[in-house]
């Protein structure tokens, strides 16, 4: 009995600081976001008017919101697929094939992930510069002299991909290290026996590596969703400010524009609610779709 009491006391002592902080600084503010989405409020005065679901009704007719929705989904899809594929391939190569300078590549690839978004924005605006930019200078070597130059941040059909490239550049190393870590724990014997049966490296990658780190890949899919929504906002607000003409507007940048620039705080919070529910639902769906029986080794 006493022991039981001690155990409970220990659990409460360990858990309560985290629960208290989490409740005060995350749960309550989130509830407030939900609550404020039902009001019309400019952000400064004391005139808050309860408007029910009116903000959401307007939202579902707002073309600009749909545009930011589309851009966000496009970014999530592109960034996830390309980063996932590249990170897996590079991780596979570095762990499985004896490449010289493994450690060097591992260390270097991770670096973009540690940079402040301000630094990344500065770097990419120099890379995408239409006349002197790194990208156009390199392309200039291969293209005809009088060909139209590519406007990485100016062409509305390209610009969202330019943002995606920067996000992928930033993320590859992080996920690569993550996959490398779990690949390293796959026993060597599995590969040896597969090798004896005549399976090539590529085949081994699909039949052994991928299935065995599947649970890890599934977890990272959730991270992809969360971090793309967040980072695309930070990058867009420093690099393009949602432009040209809203072509790179994403969920959160549109939320900020409405809540502050357009003095519609309640409306902005309604966008916040949709973003929260959407990312939650998307992660749940992805989690459900990718469910496989875990393979043990």
């Amino acid at each position, binding site marked *: 009995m006493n022991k039981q009491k001690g155990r409970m006391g220990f659990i409460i002592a360990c858990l309560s600081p985290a629960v208290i902080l989490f409740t005060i600084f995350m749960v309550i503010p989130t509830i407030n976001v939900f609550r404020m989405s039902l009001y019309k409020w400019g*952000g*400064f005065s004391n005139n808050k008017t309860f408007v029910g679901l009116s903000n959401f009704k307007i939202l579902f007719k707002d073309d600009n919101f749909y545009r930011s929705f589309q851009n966000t989904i496009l970014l999530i899809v592109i960034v996830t697929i390309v980063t996932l594929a590249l990170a897996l391939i590079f991780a596979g190569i570095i762990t499985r094939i004896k490449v010289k300078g493994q450690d060097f590549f591992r260390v270097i690839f991770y670096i973009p992930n540690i940079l402040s978004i301000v630094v990344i924005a500065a770097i990419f605006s120099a890379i995408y510069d239409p006349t002197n930019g790194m990208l156009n200078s390199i392309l200039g070597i291969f293209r005809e002299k009088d060909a139209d130059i590519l406007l990485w941040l*100016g062409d509305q059909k390209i610009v969202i991909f330019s943002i995606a490239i920067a996000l992928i550049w930033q993320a590859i190393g992080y996920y690569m290290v993550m996959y490398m870590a779990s690949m390293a724990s796959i026993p060597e014997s599995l590969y040896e026996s597969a090798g004896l049966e005549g399976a090539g490296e590529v085949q081994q990658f699909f039949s052994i590596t991928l299935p065995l780190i599947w649970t890890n890949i599934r977890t990272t899919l959730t991270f992809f969703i969360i971090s793309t929504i967040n980072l695309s906002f930070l990058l867009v607000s420093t690099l393009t400010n949602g432009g040209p003409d809203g*072509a790179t507007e994403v969920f959160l940048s549109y939320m900020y524009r409405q809540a502050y620039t357009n003095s519609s705080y309640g409306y902005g919070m309604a966008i916040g609610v949709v973003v929260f529910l959407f990312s939650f639902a998307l992660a749940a769906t992805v989690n459900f779709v990718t469910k496989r029986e875990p393979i043990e080794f």
Partner: protein
Amino acid sequence: MKKILSVMVSVAMVVAVSAGCANKEVMNNSTENIAQQTQETAKETPKEEVKEQTLKVAAFEGGYGASMWSEVVAAFEASHPGVTVELTIDKKIEDVISPSMKAGDYPDVIHLATGRQAALTETLTKEKGLLPLTDVLEMTVPGESVKVKDKIVGGFTDTLATNPYGDGITYYAPMFYSPCGLFYNAGLLEAKGWSVPATWDEMWELGEKAKAEGIALFTYPTTGYFDAFTYALIASVGGADTFNAAMSYQDGIWEGEELTQVFDIIGKLAQYTEKTTVANANDENFTKNQQLILDNKAIFVPNGTWLPGEMAEAPRADGFKWGFTALPAVKAGGSGYSFTWFEQIWIPAAAENQDMAKEFIAYMYTDEAAKIFAKSGAIQPIAGVSANLEGDNKMFYSIYDNGAKATMGGFAATTPVEGVDMKTTLFDTVNSIVSGDKTVAKWQKAVEEASDKLRAAME
């Protein structure tokens, strides 16, 4: 020790201030010094002093620099014994003050223009958080015998830029103004033997000539700069009445015959716009577009008088010389138009020290203050101030002497409409017109729709 020192400094300051009243010349020499001291001591000055009042002033630090503000504040303190001014000045003043404003801690006086990206002034306006300044206009300028309203140049206090609700009540006082127009390289035009176009038709001719030489006719820093451009264009097409009708969202005005010309002219100008402009038209890269003028890659850029200062350190083509002109006339024989942009100073309704705040605003129009501002190139709409200008500034401010007409104002304030933002709809779309992603007709329709929704939100 530190405390004793600060008390001593503040005593010394009070002495210096009262001495300054008696002897103004001595005062002026040491104003800068005192300004710094006041800022340092303001926070630590003990509250025992009987008549002590504190006035909180927040000012936007623009291209004119911050030092003129501390000088003016010191001079104000000198002429108002017992008043300590707590000056907050920053290039992003809205980021600095808006959090404490949300916390209910308002500055007494705010110098911050409309049309900034964070739109703090607009938000306060939409929220009805401003104090009417009608009685300030009736006040006598401190230490002088004229009324404030008589000292301000005519026309500056009766547009939507000072009376945001369009009801004849002034809420913002006009401060530093600057004509906006088209900047160009006068050296280039001279060398090529081209003249500055007086009508839009001549503009297009010049565009063709320049194109043949591989020079683009037009560029713009960001679409935000289309406000002054479009306002002037509207006025030049339809005069002041059309301008006011458009700014107050009159039904059908944006699709009317007159404003259709505005859309057509911008649509045509878009075809003459330098190709890389859109790619650099953001806050990170806009100077690259301005650089196009210095490099003779584009001829005209819409901008304000701060441009030469902003680009002072940039390399430039041989023989480069700044030129500045109003927008060309729509028809031959018509007059050019230039939008007069000015910064505003205002009092939040929630300010604590409102009487002193009004006194401070009235003080802005004294000869003493105007002189200090003008020294840094900040020109107020006070009769006679622009007469003493020199150099480039003289050319900029003489734009109206050459027959160009002035327009002032901006969109009327409405209660916020969720998801509808006139400036985004009207100006940001220019990027899409230049890149060909939207047609002019579609743009015009969207503007009229936004105008309809905002009209419903006007009271």
